[in-house]
């Protein structure tokens, strides 16, 4: 018998979602049990050795701002850090890190072991115990049971998982682990609906067998800084490079030659995989005229002798993979250490989770990560964090934390996920965020640190220094609004030197900065501000410049944000007893009264309520609440 068999919160699975969830729960002071099939593969990266990129990098920054772990862990264990999109604008700029997969796992494991209130144990969960529609606990393969108040399941790609390699296929999980059998059936018995998804990974090759001289070297950026706010100005002097090569006619030919052995043709796998990670076979079938596909060759760690071949994802049989590799410049003699493969697994069917990540089907059950139909480490970690925060708030009988899509990528993620209806897995990109000028990578703390502090994941001390930093930025923006440059002959001459137009009437510091080609220091020079009065930190200057230069766009965005944020605050289901609402379509009334959506903004976004209907509904609501929410919602 177990000594202890009750925990307030139990987390199943120590992948990226599970680690984040367990740490947040324990750090909020709740006794937490983290159960995972194999302690040796905690925080495993079964696919690419990298974290970040547009959208994903934003998530990592936000996880850090809110008090999560992923940002810190990757900052400490990366082998390369890089800026992306710097020339394309502040809304899409982001970092991407190459991870040392082994160090990442080791560091995460240490953190788990060293966190008070948290117990990490190996165990294969085969059953969830539900009592009267509420989660009551879990049972392991060994028959041992644990009871809990809240359960967070983050089973990743492991549920009833099947590995596919050409015609061969077997039950199994990444890295020759075994599939999780049993839990799926138990979830189904509790009323949860499942579906099959798939994903795949490329082969790994021996470094010494690759001719790096034929490849283009892609170094990192020394001054990219880390994801965590504390690491924002950190310099990464020592980095290792990635490399780039391309396929050509020979590779296309090799793929075509072997196509009959592709699971795509064999149809021995579900077709629902991530759109953004097509296999090389799919790419060549879909874009038959394209010959040159990029292959990024990425290290898996400082010491690792393995190279990851991003762009060559495939589940064709080993001989075919060899054939294709032999056709790519630099990889002609590559020795495969691990073959690429596809994996098929159980995930939730759409429409069963709330924005809080709680199940709509079973009370007290939360799900996060790949199980919810996403793909990617960052998406998993973000959901794990939100799920744990809400599990703990519910435990403490406090109102839930609904991150708003107007305030964070985390909000976009959970909002989209709770309404996602497409067959393919969800991956975050800036394209999903309609308010992306506000959700900039550099403003994560200014948007979220206060939430993290209120929730309890950001310490008083940390919050105070973030507050000071953000006050410096805001004060400087305000100061620039007051400073003014008079149109003297001298000033005009100096402006002309910047090639930045004439000056007819006095211009504020803001107006100067808004002119193309004038940066912060130049504006300060023009305004003849002494050096002591200026900002010095590069990130603060960047924030000031960006806010001011994009202020016109930001203002228009702010108007739209007001409307969405207002609709988000009207939670569903609502009881529409007012007889005047009978004019709404019966379908709309039914949805308003049902548990299908979390709030009105979701209903509008999904076109379940026309603009006229919103106007009617809001005017009736406003009347009934006697001016409680006197917000005018423009019919836009």
């Amino acid at each position, binding site marked *: 018998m177990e000594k202890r068999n009750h925990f307030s919160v139990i987390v199943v699975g120590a992948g990226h979602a599970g680690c984040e969830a367990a740490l947040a729960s324990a750090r909020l002071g709740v006794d937490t049990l983290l159960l995972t099939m194999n302690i040796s593969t905690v925080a495993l990266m079964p696919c690419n050795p990298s974290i970040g990129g547009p959208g994903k990098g934003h998530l990592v920054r936000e996880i850090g701002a809110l008090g999560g772990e992923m940002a810190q862990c990757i900052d400490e264990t990366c082998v390369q850090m890089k800026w992306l999109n710097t020339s394309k604008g502040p809304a899409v700029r982001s970092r991407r890190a190459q991870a040392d997969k082994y160090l990442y796992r080791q560091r995460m494991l240490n953190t788990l072991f060293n966190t008070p209130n948290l117990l990490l144990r190996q165990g294969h969960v085969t059953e969830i115990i539900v009592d009267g529609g509420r989660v009551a606990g879990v049972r392991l393969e060994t028959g041992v049971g644990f009871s809990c108040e809240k359960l967070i399941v983050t089973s990743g790609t492991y549920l009833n998982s099947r590995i596919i390699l050409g015609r061969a296929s077997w039950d199994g999980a990444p890295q020759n682990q075994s599939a999780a059998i049993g839990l799926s059936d138990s979830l189904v018995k509790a009323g949860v609906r499942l579906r099959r998804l798939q994903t795949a990974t490329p082969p790994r090759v021996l470094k010494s067998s690759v001719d790096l001289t034929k490849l283009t070297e892609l170094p990192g950026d020394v001054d990219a800084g880390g994801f965590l706010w504390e690491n924002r100005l950190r310099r990464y002097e020592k980095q290792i490079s990635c490399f780039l090569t391309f396929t050509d006619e020979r590779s296309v030919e090799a793929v075509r030659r072997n196509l009959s052995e592709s699971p795509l043709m064999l149809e021995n796998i579900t077709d629902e995989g991530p*759109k953004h990670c097509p296999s090389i076979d799919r790419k060549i079938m879909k874009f038959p005229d394209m010959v040159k596909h990029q292959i*990024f060759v990425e290290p898996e760690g400082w010491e690792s002798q393995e190279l990851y071949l991003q762009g060559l994802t495939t589940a064709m049989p080993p001989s075919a993979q060899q054939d294709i590799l032999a056709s790519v410049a630099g990889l002609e003699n590559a020795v495969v250490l691990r073959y690429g493969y596809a994996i098929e697994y159980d995930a939730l069917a759409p429409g069963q989770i709330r924005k809080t990540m709680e199940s709509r089907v079973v009370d007290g059950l939360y799900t996060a990560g790949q199980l919810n139909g996403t793909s990617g480490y960052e998406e998993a970690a973000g959901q794990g964090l939100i799920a744990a925060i809400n599990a703990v708030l519910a435990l403490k009988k406090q109102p839930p934390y609904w991150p708003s899509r107007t305030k964070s990528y985390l909000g976009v993620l959970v909002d989209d996920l709770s309404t996602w209806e497409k067959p393919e897995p969800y991956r975050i990109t800036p*394209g999903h965020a309609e308010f992306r000028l506000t959700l900039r990578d550099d403003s994560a703390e200014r948007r979220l640190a206060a939430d993290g502090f209120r929730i309890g994941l950001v310490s008083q001390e940390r919050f105070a220094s973030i507050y000071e930093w953000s006050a410096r930025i805001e004060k400087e923006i305000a100061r620039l609004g007051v400073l003014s440059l008079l149109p003297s002959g001298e000033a005009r001459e100096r402006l002309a030197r910047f090639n930045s137009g004439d000056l007819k009437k006095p211009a504020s510091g803001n107006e100067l900065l808004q002119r193309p080609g004038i940066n912060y220091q130049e504006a300060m020079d023009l305004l003849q501000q002494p050096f002591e009065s200026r900002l010095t930190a590069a990130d603060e200057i960047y924030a000031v410049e960006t806010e001011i230069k994009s202020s016109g*766009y930001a203002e228009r965005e702010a108007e739209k944000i007001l409307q969405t944020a207002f609709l988000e605050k009207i939670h569903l289901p609502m009881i529409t007893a007012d007889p005047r609402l009978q004019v709404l*379509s019966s379908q709309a009334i039914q949805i308003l009264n049902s548990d299908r959506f979390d709030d009105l903004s979701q209903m509008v976004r999904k076109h379940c309520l026309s603009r006229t209907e919103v106007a009617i509904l809001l005017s009736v609501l406003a009347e009934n609440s006697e001016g409680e929410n006197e917000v005018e919602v423009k019919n836009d």
Partner: protein
Amino acid sequence: MSKLKIDTIAAVSTPAGRSAISLIRVSGPETFKILSKLFKTGGKKAFPLPYSAYFGAIVEPDTGLVADKCLVTTFLAPKSYTGEDLAEVSTHGNPVVVSRVMQLLLKNGARAAEAGEFTRRAFLHGKMDLLEVEAVSQLLSAGTASQARLALNQLDGLPSKFVARIRDRLIHNLVQLEASLNFPEDAVEAIDEHLLAIEIKHILAELHVFARNARNGNLVADGLRIALLGRPNSGKSSLMNYMLGRERAIVTDIAGTTRDTLEEAMMIGDFPVKIIDTAGMRRPGDRIEAMGIERTGQAVDSAFAIVGVFDGSQPVSSEDILVLDRIKSSQKPFILVCNKTDLPQRLEESFFSGCPTVEISSLKASGLPQLVKTLREIISSSGLSELEEMVLLGAQQSVSLDKALAALERADQGIGTMYQDMLAIDLEEAVRELGRVNGETVDVNTLDLIFERFCIGK
């Protein structure tokens, strides 16, 4: 959309009693059930197949009598004009035969269609856009040739096709831009800003023309406003009555009779116009008159053209000078009327010098043809006669068009110096608003389009 019970409708759609063949349309869920009862076809072909024609006969089920031999063409939902199951029954043109077939259809479950019902169903099923539907209703209520022409333009789908085409061009660019923003490490060609700048300029130019045509279209649809302006007692109300050919406005010899503006519709050639009688212009004597005079000012502002009315039997007064100044400063096309030519003329001729003038006696009904002729010239020189290009927009659609234009103006000014992510915001806004001009609420799923067009994937 609320779930109305949709029944099956039938109507004769060729003009009654004229042609050798009559066409009866049946549309709705019961279409083929009803026809299977009535229509006997000789062949072995299954009935109905998508878009197929069948020879056969309409037979009265009770008596077995053949009502007519005919051709039935079948269209299965959603691939039909209405988007529903639809059949076209071509019978002989004989009115007796046509009405017998109609009777049979109605007796067996169809309902006689109301005016415009086929069109309405087409819209409900997404077969027509808002602009087209608005056009059909305009066409049905069109009073003049120019209004009908306008409605026909809409029906041909000219404006909506135009807007859709512009929107597609923008989407094409937006998708490429977004691809490179969202997937910086994939081999997406960076967008050529120089080419994009040219494209935006072209689109802006075309949209400005479209916006002007829309303004003109709305002018024509509402009637061009022509304001009569002059000092009290100059004979404005008398002139209005003369133009209308009936006693509409009260006429007295008391100065200040008309205290509020009056509007009446009439035709000038092919064009519908609204004649607006106003309160005479002078320093107000009381509050009500003051309000009337203020309205006069508004009438001038909203007018398409102004007719200045002067009393030819009186010497020029300071009020007349005030009126002429107001007319000239309005920047609108105008014409001056020297009224009361039946009386001895005491108005100095030099007062009118350099301005288009016609002489009229409202009392004796002379001089109107000359006034109408001049007004026609004013209308045609404004470009309004190019009816082929006119467009009609509703209020909400005009707002959306303006927003799209504003977004593109920003993009036009910013491109080259502005970040691409902001450029994308402008393009996205233009695409969204142009969608609203055509009444589409479908979201553009940029990400899906990216995956269709570019080989994204690590």
